């Protein structure tokens, strides 16, 4: 297991909530990413416990997907902490533009929050008494940031690099380029020669070169076959909804395939299937890999 400095604490949970990274400095505390909305009370409990009586001063988000910023509002309510978001998302968040934010398109929840600071690529931040630099990490999300601590060789990668792969390449799903951005972001990560990566999901890891190799392999596979990227994306989206709801009647799986805006767009653009056909394919696929099971007419998270 890679070692981290005492000021860095990773709160690792399941895949519905991203990891949160607590950075505890002598004078200031910060949390990178805040998990999913339905876990917000637990996030506040975890942070309160880990801070042992100190206040949380600042939140920094790597990107604004619901599983990374869903606890922003609750933590702000608990601590009045400052919230720092990627600069490119500021106008969208200020207006809380539901069409530009991803929450409506994915039928995911995220309570509204306001921001106090913007973070632009290249900008330096002091978090947990360590010097971090924000770096652009487009691909999974066009505005996503990496946080790189050169002094300690620690990279907070969000969903740009996981131990096994990376997050869904969302821009490609709506006809915007994304694969080249994923490649550029992986190339950038490769130049950093990080000692430890703290990913957005899963445990921190030190075998970064191997992870990059897996990520490049996956990218090549998805870029060669965008339908596969689309199929993977709809499975991930439905699994996420299942993680949140735990049980979804089969009729509602069909309804979700017919009404969740991103599922409808992907279905029409890539999959050429009816909502019923997609629902049946998803149920079979999720049950087939053990990500769900059937309880009569209800799809149950597994």
């Amino acid at each position, binding site marked *: *297991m890679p070692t981290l400095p005492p000021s860095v*604490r990773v709160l690792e949970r*399941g895949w519905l909530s991203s990891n949160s990274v607590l950075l505890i400095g002598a004078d200031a505390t910060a949390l990178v990413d805040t998990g999913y909305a339905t876990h917000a009370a637990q996030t506040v409990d975890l942070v309160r416990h880990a801070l042992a009586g100190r206040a949380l001063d600042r939140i920094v988000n790597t990107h604004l997907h619901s599983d990374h910023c869903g606890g922003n509002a609750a933590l702000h309510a608990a601590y009045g902490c400052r919230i720092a978001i990627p600069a490119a998302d500021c106008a969208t968040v200020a207006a809380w533009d539901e069409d530009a934010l991803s929450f409506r398109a994915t039928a995911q929840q995220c309570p509204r929050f306001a921001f106090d600071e913007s973070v632009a690529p290249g900008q330096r931040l002091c978090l947990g008494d360590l010097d971090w630099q924000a770096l652009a990490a487009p691909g999974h999300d066009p505005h996503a940031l990496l946080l790189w601590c050169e002094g300690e060789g620690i990279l907070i990668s969000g969903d740009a690099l996981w131990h096994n792969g990376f997050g869904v390449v969302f821009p490609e799903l709506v006809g915007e380029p994304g694969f080249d951005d994923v490649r550029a972001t992986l190339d950038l990560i490769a130049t950093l020669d990080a000692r430890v990566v703290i990913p957005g999901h899963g445990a921190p890891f030190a075998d970064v070169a191997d992870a990059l190799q897996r990520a490049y392999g996956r990218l090549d596979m998805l870029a060669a076959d965008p339908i596969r990227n689309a199929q993977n994306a709809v499975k991930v989206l439905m699994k996420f909804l299942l993680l949140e709801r735990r049980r979804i009647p089969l009729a509602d799986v069909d309804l979700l395939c017919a009404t969740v805006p991103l599922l409808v767009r992907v279905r029409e653009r890539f999959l050429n299937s009816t909502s019923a056909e997609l629902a049946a394919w998803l149920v079979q696929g999720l049950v087939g890999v053990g990500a769900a099971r059937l309880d009569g007419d209800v799809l149950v998270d597994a």
Partner: protein
Amino acid sequence: MSPVTGLCEGCLRTIDEIVAWSRADDDYKRAVWGEIRRREEQIPFD
């Protein structure tokens, strides 16, 4: 978190265990996994 058991309803760990997890050694994690398996036996799932 379950108000009854004090456990995360997803991973069946306590707040203490989740906070300690990322810095814990493998022995600690194996011990917690043992506890999780024991807790699974005791918790009725719907």
